[in-house]
């Protein structure tokens, strides 16, 4: 069993638990574990830039989710039944089986001389347009929220 396969299975398990657990604080913790696992997998296929970005974006997302969760969390206190837990384990095994069956969990062909900045420059128009759209949407949402708060107060 290769280390990549173990990391992939652990990442899948963490992703599944992030959605299965009722307590959202624990779910966010498992989401962070998923992000770390994906980042390690990126490192294993020689995509260091992607791995670092995945970690950075993952940390930002987890922090934002944690803060929002603290503001809107409601304690459920519901305990899972044994049947529900067994069903969840069965579903996870079903999802993980194809990865188990693929005995050679090896990375694809190792990356050659990658030059992200050069490629980024070649699609700079798309990049600028996407960033502009995102800034516009974020600004619009901020305006809507602030207007809503002003109307409420």
């Amino acid at each position, binding site marked *: 069993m290769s280390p990549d396969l173990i990391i992939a299975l652990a990442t899948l398990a963490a992703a599944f638990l992030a*959605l299965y657990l009722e307590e959202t604080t624990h779910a966010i913790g498992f989401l962070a574990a*998923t992000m770390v696992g*994906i980042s390690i997998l990126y490192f294993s296929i020689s995509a260091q830039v992607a791995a670092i970005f995945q970690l950075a974006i993952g940390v930002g997302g987890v922090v934002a989710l944690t803060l929002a969760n603290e503001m*809107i969390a*409601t304690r459920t206190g519901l305990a899972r039944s044994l049947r529900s837990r067994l069903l969840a384990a069965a579903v996870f095994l079903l999802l993980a089986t*194809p990865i188990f069956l*693929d005995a050679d969990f090896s990375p694809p062909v190792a990356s*050659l001389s*990658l030059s992200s900045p050069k490629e980024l420059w070649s699609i700079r128009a798309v990049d600028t347009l996407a960033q502009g759209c995102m800034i516009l949407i*974020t600004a619009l949402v901020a305006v809507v929220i602030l207007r809503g708060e002003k109307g409420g107060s």
Partner: protein
Amino acid sequence: MSYITFSLALLAIGIYGLVAKRNIVKTLIAIELIASAASINFVVFASARGEALGHTFMLLTFGIDSCVTGVALALAITIYRQLRTADLEKLRRLRE
């Protein structure tokens, strides 16, 4: 091939969360997982072909994904302040 299977499994988990969960935060976690599954495809295909274009698109995907998460969280907090609930089913009933 195995990395594609992994990404498919992650996508399936994300879709399960999107369909089955009623909490807004859980729904956002599911969206994050789906976006991560898409990013894995970009990186894997780029590494397999030895081109950097896939990595570049993955960086764009990351930026857009984080903006989507931020906007969705802002909307979730606003909804919670107005209606005092984070349950999507209750929100649907309120709309009706």
